[in-house]
């Protein structure tokens, strides 16, 4: 798809750029022909519009002739031919236009006659100018794509990463349970396996229903529940309508992990982790709240998991998604907001 046609603003900018170009055409042709400004305006306005449309076409040819791999003569030859064809198309329309205008101004055809050559030359030049513009657009586009690709690669690496300390601490809990409560040890093995299997599987997908994200977070909480015992309490206020919303994978679990690692684990008496999900104004709003000890020894600084979530949201939704962090007085709240989108059923 042509980048200028993708959104209204860039299209508007493109056409506004043609206003001064159209004025240049007008000045040049009225000087060459014998027309007053009103007649010039009547001829040049539709011509400029048409030319502006025709000048969008080099995008496709530019894509086929990338500058770094195509010989220069070839680039030049193809675009010159295209410019000739493009301007011919515009010039071809001019006689019809003049005929139409002759109803209002009888001698307009002969008056405009001398300006035709000037018009032809300028159309040709403007077309080549737009070729240059399109190469520039292409460079911008490809650099943006490269950024997205590198971000995706980074994400893949991150998704494959299950926090090893979580794993070791869980295994240690299992080791303790084997003698005092074998059934519970087995349960924890199963929960841990569920969590590992699911988080590995989710890493392969680009988008999953929010309900599945919650389920993964719950498996994680189940494991941590056994490890922390009474210190971990979970409160939930989840609207089931949220479950169908499509979100990037591994969005919720890092937030929950953060709440436990930097919140509950810092409190001797433990505390509550509150999860809430609602839909408002076409957005899914999900929050994780917990208490923490502001005077706790600083571990390797938190926020890495959150930073990762934030950059992934940014890559996917741009400014349409938010991740807000509110910290006050031993209270930590992460609020996530993403546009509510459902998977299109095929």
């Amino acid at each position, binding site marked *: 798809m042509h980048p200028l046609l993708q959104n209204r603003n860039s299209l508007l900018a493109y056409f506004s750029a043609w206003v001064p170009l159209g004025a240049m055409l007008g000045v040049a042709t009225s000087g060459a022909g014998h027309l007053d400004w009103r007649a010039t305006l009547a001829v040049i306005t539709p011509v400029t519009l048409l030319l502006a449309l025709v000048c969008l076409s080099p995008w496709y040819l530019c894509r086929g002739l990338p500058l770094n791999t195509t010989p220069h003569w070839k680039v030049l030859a193809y675009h010159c031919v295209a410019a000739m064809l493009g301007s011919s198309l515009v010039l071809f329309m001019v006689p019809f236009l003049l005929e139409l205008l002759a109803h209002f101004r009888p001698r307009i055809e002969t008056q405009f006659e001398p300006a035709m050559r000037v018009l032809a030359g300028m159309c040709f030049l403007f077309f080549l100018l737009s070729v240059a513009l399109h190469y520039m657009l292409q460079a911008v586009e490809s650099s943006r794509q490269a950024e997205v690709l590198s971000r995706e690669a980074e994400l893949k690496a991150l998704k494959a990463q299950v926090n090893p300390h979580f794993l*070791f*601490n869980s295994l240690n809990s*299992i080791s*303790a349970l084997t003698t005092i409560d074998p059934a519970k040890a087995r349960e924890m093995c199963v929960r841990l396996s569920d969590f590992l299997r699911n988080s590995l599987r989710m890493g392969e997908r680009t988008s999953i229903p929010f309900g599945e994200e919650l389920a993964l977070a719950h498996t994680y909480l189940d494991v941590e529940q056994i490890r922390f015992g009474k210190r971990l309490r979970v409160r939930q206020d989840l609207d089931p309508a949220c479950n169908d919303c499509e979100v990037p994978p591994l969005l919720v679990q890092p937030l929950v992990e953060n709440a436990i690692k930097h919140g509950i684990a810092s409190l*001797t008496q433990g505390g509550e982790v509150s999860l809430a999900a609602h839909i408002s104004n076409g957005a899914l709003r999900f929050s994780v709240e917990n208490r923490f000890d502001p005077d706790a*020894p600083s571990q390797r600084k938190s926020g890495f998991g959150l930073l990762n979530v934030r950059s992934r949201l940014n890559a996917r939704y741009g400014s349409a998604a938010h991740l807000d962090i509110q910290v006050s007085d031993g209270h930590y709240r992460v609020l996530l907001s993403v546009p509510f989108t459902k998977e299109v059923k095929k």
Partner: protein
Amino acid sequence: MSIRALIADDEELARQILREYLANQSDIEIVGECDNGFATVKAISDLKPDLLFLDVQMPKLDGFEVLELVDTHLAVVFVTAYDQYATKAFDAAAVDYLLKPFDLPRFETALHRVRQRLALPPTTTLAPAELRNAALPPGRYAERIVIRDGARVHIVPVAQIDYVEAQDDYLAFHSAGKSNLKQQTISSLEESLDPKQFVRVHRSFVVNLDRIRKIEAYTKDTRIAILTDGAKIPISRAGYLKLKEVMAQP
């Protein structure tokens, strides 16, 4: 005489394992269990254990901070899931470093080392401040200083320190008009602080750069720094060169 052991770990199940493994050791007696750093410091001074099983990540104070505040000699065995501090801390002073989860044979190896260590005269069982430095990864600096004042523990974020003065075997940490004493050498402190923020301007003084208001000449070779709270501290010739160097950096 049996070995008196203290267990410090915030997870009940983790303490459970140690209890279970220790139950078969006739020469070891568990005198207490702690689930956070403060409680551990207090229990050490109250119960005077010979042996401490210590988790690194705990509420209130981490394991290394606990050791900084301990002035009695005791054998320390770290028990943690984190291996990143292991080698260095282990080399520095700890008797052993158990990585969770661990089995009984590995635990018994640790106990063997403990018995050997406790059979030695209590000379260099621990050097807490040095251990702390060893535990900091390269390029990372202390973010807070823990100081014990009798039964109380002060936690001073390094950004709040105005300057530190060496007084015999102690350091006086000055912050917000108050000063706290801690047993530590000034060179080990200097190593643990960010050199872009704290400069040792004199044999006995380390100063927070943000607190310097102006520098005045004192004698031909020495100068005096006047801090924002009016305190005056001496700057040696070498200290002045260091100060200029740090301040010239962007």
